[in-house]
């Protein structure tokens, strides 16, 4: 089965790649990811609220706000992340190890749906919202969840936000293809078969894949390629144009 949809807007943020122009140059091989991750300013959020945002939350919210634009107050959303705000969670675990009391702010904002919840609070958005994690396939699983909801609920549009950050030092030996990246997509229903994307998924015997799906997706969306095929563990994801 294949699900059809249109991508009306794509906003992404990664170390050294912040604007549409940066990403265009990256796709053409004229710009590369850097080591230093700078953070979006988020000037639309009041300073007293902004101070509680972690780097993870800032990047996820930037992508969510920019991609949803005029629809941000009422658009249904799907947020996806493999690790969530692991830097916050790690600080909590370290506090427990040191028998220190936990920071209530860190605790409250470490849950997997924290960025989605913050987005809903800042925009006053009360539409259905979910936060998912799907291992190394988190980008594609989240996209699948978003386009399946678009189809099943006959929505005109849905916001999809994916975000992961380079994991904290102590987890690095266990994680491959670890890239800091946030992507926000304004996804719309479409009847136009020629200007649409189709996503399909197959379970396969066994494949060994370790690509960063989110980066591959950015490479595909900015290109003229007709399809993006990714294999991860026992899953094959196919995203086709037209």
């Amino acid at each position: 089965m294949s699900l059809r949809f249109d991508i009306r807007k794509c906003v992404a943020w990664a170390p050294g790649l912040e604007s549409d122009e940066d990403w265009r140059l990256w796709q053409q091989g004229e710009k590369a990811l850097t080591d230093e991750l700078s953070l979006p300013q988020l000037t639309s959020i009041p300073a007293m609220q902004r101070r509680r945002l972690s780097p993870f939350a800032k990047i996820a919210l930037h992508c969510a706000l920019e991609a949803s634009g005029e629809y941000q107050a009422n658009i249904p959303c799907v947020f996806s992340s493999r690790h969530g705000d692991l830097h916050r969670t790690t600080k909590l675990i370290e506090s427990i190890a040191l028998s220190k009391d936990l920071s209530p702010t860190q605790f409250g904002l470490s849950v997997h749906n924290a960025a989605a919840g913050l987005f809903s609070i800042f925009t006053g958005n009360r539409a259905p919202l979910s936060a998912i994690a799907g291992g190394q396939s988190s980008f594609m699983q989240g996209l699948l969840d978003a386009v399946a909801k678009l189809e099943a609920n006959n929505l005109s549009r849905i916001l999809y936000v994916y975000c992961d950050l380079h994991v904290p030092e102590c987890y690095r030996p266990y994680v491959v293809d670890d890239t800091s990246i946030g992507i926000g997509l304004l996804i719309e229903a479409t009847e136009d078969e020629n200007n649409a994307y189709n996503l399909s998924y197959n379970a396969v015997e066994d494949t060994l894949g370790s690509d960063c799906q989110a980066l591959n997706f950015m490479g595909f969306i900015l290109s003229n390629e007709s399809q993006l095929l990714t294999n991860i563990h026992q899953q094959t994801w196919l995203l086709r144009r037209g």
Partner: protein
Amino acid sequence: MSDLNHEIKLLIIEALDLEDISVDDIDDDAPLFVDGLGLDSIDALELGVAIKNAYNIKIDGNTEDSKKYFYSVKTLSDYIQISK
């Protein structure tokens, strides 16, 4: 300014991520919550934990007494001194 007051101001700025505020911006006698610095109820919890971690002094939750101690830098500093 007493050393303890200075220390408490630094603790407040650090524990509550008040990036744009310096020690000089916080008045010893000004209210910390709502008016004055404009902190909220999550900040009160956070500050309670920070004080417990730094001075090993526990200020009980939402009681009339705790509201008095949390009123300003001065009241917090006085409470920490008598509790040490």
